[in-house]
């Protein structure tokens, strides 16, 4: 179900990179006592890297540079870190490349 939502998110969010969006991640708390949660991000299918950690069950940030971003979260305590959650994705697509550039020489009339 969430994969479908993640894919669905990609389509309507083909927005201009100049638009300011507030991104909000939400997740369910885990039943154990934990030190907090870690938010990971991957850009354009690169490996995930640690974006931030929080003691809340949500995380907000403003939009980023163009690209397809995937997010996932883990919980952690002093003894280790959980496996990552399922991913959600969003994208701010770069404008398409202009094509068919032509050049016309304009000869000034003498």
């Amino acid at each position, binding site marked *: 179900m*969430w994969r479908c*939502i*993640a894919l669905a*998110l990609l389509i309507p*969010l083909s927005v201009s990179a100049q*638009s*300011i*969006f*507030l*991104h*909000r*991640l*939400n*997740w*369910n*708390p*885990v*039943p*154990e006592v*934990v030190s907090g*949660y870690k938010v990971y991000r991957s850009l354009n299918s690169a*490996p*995930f890297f640690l974006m931030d950690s929080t003691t809340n*069950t949500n995380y907000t940030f403003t*939009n980023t540079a163009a690209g397809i971003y995937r*997010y*996932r*979260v*883990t*919980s*952690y*305590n*002093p*003894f*280790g*870190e*959980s*496996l*990552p*959650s*399922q*991913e*959600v*994705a*969003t994208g701010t697509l770069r404008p398409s490349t202009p094509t068919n550039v032509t050049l016309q020489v304009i000869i000034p009339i003498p």
Partner: protein
Amino acid sequence: MRYSWGLIALLFVSTAYSASVSLSWDASTSSGITEYIVKYGAVPGVYTAQESAGMATSKTIPGLPDGFRYYFVVTAKGSGGESDVSNEVSYRQSFSNPPVQILLEVASAILEPPFVLVSDGSYTYAVSTNEDVGFCRFFPTFPFLDEYVIWAAVLSENEGTDSFYVSQDSHPEDVYDTVRLWTPAWQWTMINGRGGIDKPIESSHAIDPRFFIVSGPNEIRFRGREQGTKLKAILITNDRSVVPIYPSTPTNLTLTLER
């Protein structure tokens, strides 16, 4: 002629105060007892010290050093001689150190092939690719002499990937069976033993997992036993109340956007 003394049953060992033990026993059923003798030592069956309890059926032995186990028996003396020793009881005065936890990831260990370090994107772990060979050696520094337990973060997905040989410094290896329930999730289990690597699997978990470790640098060494058993970290602690766990995976992650 030797007297036939009745069985003396040691009933009770308790701490009267720090580093003292109080023993009590049933009186001998024989007549003509002149005194009871408490004998004790640091090795079972070898009693290097003794004290008379007189005609009393209890005795407090003070001044036992922290951390060492002592073994006690009682005999009865009469005009005809001394009885056989009673049943043996033992007691170890706890160390009085503050609680300590030492967490070591495998990235800090020295690996000897065919132990290799693997990263699967979520976890970095050590695994031996062959049976019975390869080492994963941790070198923790201990703050004080104490009795420690060691937990290990392992992944044991089936019966064929659930053990290591474990040794401390130059002590003999024992078999550590990592789990009783196999699962594809990482879990912390306390290192146990069989009482020797030649002992059958029925002896698994038979040994109360204790490591007497002196202060300073030590080595905790894992040797591959069943290939594919994965090791991520160890936790060494003198605090029996500590039970390390991996937290659950967060669920229901959603992303919303607002202008």
